[in-house]
């Protein structure tokens, strides 16, 4: 990281709250700004729609990233086709930016026959081979050393495409030993990885200051010899700038970067959570004022790239596409019950073949709640 960006772990920002950009910061191409804006808007609409569907009982669960969109969207904008992503709960949308189809994305939330994961995972646990996005378990932490391992392999194989591997985690996850193992290995072997922590200030009901006595999350990376920066995660331009620089450094053989993106989870932890039980509406309101989408919009209005009419048209177009995808997915059947046994191993051993026969011979299972 250049000295400028890493300076004393101060907060790196480009956009002011009023949407104006700092003059001394690198310019971000207009096409990227517009693409980023579109993707952030789309993501916000997708999350709102999925939460609505969950409330209607049409999907089982959802983990939104409302208020945090700038982080995954900037990541998607920066990455090339050979790069790999190891997400946690709130980075599923990186796949969409990298060309994964919306219908398949929604099918994962429904877990039906359109889902590339064959309905095995809870919603918000997307993965897809076509976009090098690896399946996340649900367990907090293990994906981070895996991201480092993939980067290590890229380096060991001297991959001519010079890919990078991105690992995501939340602030809570930095308490897990897996995070510390990942940093130890990343620093020592100087792997082409960028580890991005979305510090959204809460780990379900536990605020970050009760999670750790570290003054910042970024400082944890420094202890392991990994260059570390703190970025305003609600600032698409700042995220884009920092991730561009970090991925370039990695591609050029200069090793890993740890990025602490300061942001805020505006909604519930998931559809199973009620945040009014542990945090004040005042706090949420203060962060709403720093909303990443609003800030980017102000900036684009400022630049004359967006206005009310273009916004209305964009929103209508995106909403139609999302509704159409949902409609398509709802017409798909559930996975056949035989598929229960596939992919446990590459080939079914005798016990699973027997158990598949047993299931075929058994009566139909009751529906949920029956």
């Amino acid at each position, binding site marked *: 990281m250049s000295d400028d960006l890493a300076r004393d772990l101060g907060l790196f920002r480009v956009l002011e709250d009023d949407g104006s950009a700092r003059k001394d910061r690198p310019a971000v191409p207009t096409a990227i700004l517009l693409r980023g804006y579109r993707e952030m808007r789309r993501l916000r609409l997708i999350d709102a729609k999925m939460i609505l569907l969950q409330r209607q009982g049409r999907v*089982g*669960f959802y983990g939104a990233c409302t208020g945090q969109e700038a982080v995954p969207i900037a990541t998607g904008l920066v990455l090339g086709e050979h790069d790999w992503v190891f997400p946690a709960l709130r980075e599923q949308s990186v796949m969409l930016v990298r060309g994964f189809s919306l219908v398949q994305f929604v099918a994962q939330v429904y*877990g*039906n026959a359109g889902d590339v994961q064959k*309905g*095995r*995972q*809870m919603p918000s*646990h997307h993965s897809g081979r076509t976009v090098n996005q690896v399946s996340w*378990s*649900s*367990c*907090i*932490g293990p994906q981070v050393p895996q991201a480092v391992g993939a980067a290590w392999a890229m380096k060991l194989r001297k991959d001519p495409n010079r890919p990078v591997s991105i690992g995501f985690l939340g602030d*809570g*996850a930095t*308490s*897990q*030993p*897996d995070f510390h193992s990942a940093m130890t290995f990343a620093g020592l072997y100087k792997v082409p990885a960028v580890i991005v922590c979305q510090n959204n200030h809460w*780990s*379900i*009901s*536990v605020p970050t200051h*009760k*999670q*750790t006595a570290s003054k910042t999350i970024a400082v944890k990376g420094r202890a392991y010899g990994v260059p570390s920066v703190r970025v305003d995660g609600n600032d698409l331009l700042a995220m884009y700038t920092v991730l561009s620089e970090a991925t370039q450094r990695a591609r050029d053989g200069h090793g890993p970067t740890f990025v602490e993106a300061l942001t805020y989870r505006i909604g519930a932890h998931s559809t*199973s*959570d009620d945040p009014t*039980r*542990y945090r004040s509406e005042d706090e949420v309101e203060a962060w709403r004022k720093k909303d990443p989408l609003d800030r980017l919009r102000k900036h684009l209005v400022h630049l004359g790239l967006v206005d009310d009419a273009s916004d209305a048209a964009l929103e209508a177009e995106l909403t139609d596409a999302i509704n159409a995808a949902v409609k398509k997915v709802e017409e798909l059947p*559930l*996975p056949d*019950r035989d*598929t*229960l*046994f596939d992919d*446990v191993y590459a080939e079914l051993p005798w*016990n*699973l073949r027997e*158990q598949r026969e047993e*299931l075929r011979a*058994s*009566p*139909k*299972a*009751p*529906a*949920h709640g029956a």
Partner: protein
Amino acid sequence: MAQMNLVAAINDALRLAMKADDRVVVMGEDVGKVGGVFRVTQGLYDEFGEDRVIDTPLSEGGILGTAIGMALYGLLPVPEIQFADFIFPGYDQIVSELAKLRYRSGGEYPAKMVIRTPVGGGIRGGLYHSQSPESLFIHVAGLKVVCPSNPYDAKGLLLASLRDPDPVLFFEPKRIYRAARGEVPEGDYTVPLSKAKVVREAQGSKAVTVVAWGAMLYEAIAAAEEAEKQGVSCEIVDLRTLWPLDIDTVVESVKKTGRVVVVHEAPRTCGLGGEIVALVNEKAFLHLEAPPCRVTGFDTPFPYTLEMDYLPLAHRILPAVVATANY
């Protein structure tokens, strides 16, 4: 007596224990201010304060490792692991440390604690919010494992677990956290560990012993009611303590019926059902009229969409019971 669900009964037991013994400390992710993601520890933080009801950092290894240190020093920790599926980052502390401390120190340093954690499927939790890992702990010498099926037992077993000298894993069947309701006495009482309960007695000659626990007990009962209509009588044993299990009650029942079906959510291979069947073979072989049978989760990870097909619910228990009876 008050009507309570499982959540309230466990909460009541924790409150009583904390009042009676200031060494008892509840700790875990989100157990404090919000009272746990299933609200099992609700109200305890306000009543006992942040030194006794501790919202810990997100680290199961840290929670269990520090709990061991607390226990060695003389506290009685009750760590909560948010889902049993997330116990594995702390598995080393349980398997290599907690289970073996008494033995390796020649009895000088036992570490006593009760680890509470929700288990089981049927709540659309997918691979990592649904598992039943009991046999991974039973296989490790030095640990006791308990799994209540109703509020009365839950309170009594938890109080007994806290008094037992050994470390106990207290598995709470989350699918029936709110659905299982019943009378729970006020104040202190215990339900002894390692004592199973016959919850339905077999009548007549065409009888089958069904061994079950936790949420699957209700599926066994539903299957038994259907089987009754087909002239098959079930004797249902609620194991309650999974290890050390009450082998006498199981064997006594099998000697009476000559037949046994074991039901559990965990995968079949190396599951507790296999151990129970082996024990029955060893101890009641000459009384058997039919091969012992297991109705279990399949040998696959726990699926999301197809979870009702995966679980050994009444629709799968019934044909097994009837076939065993008619063997």
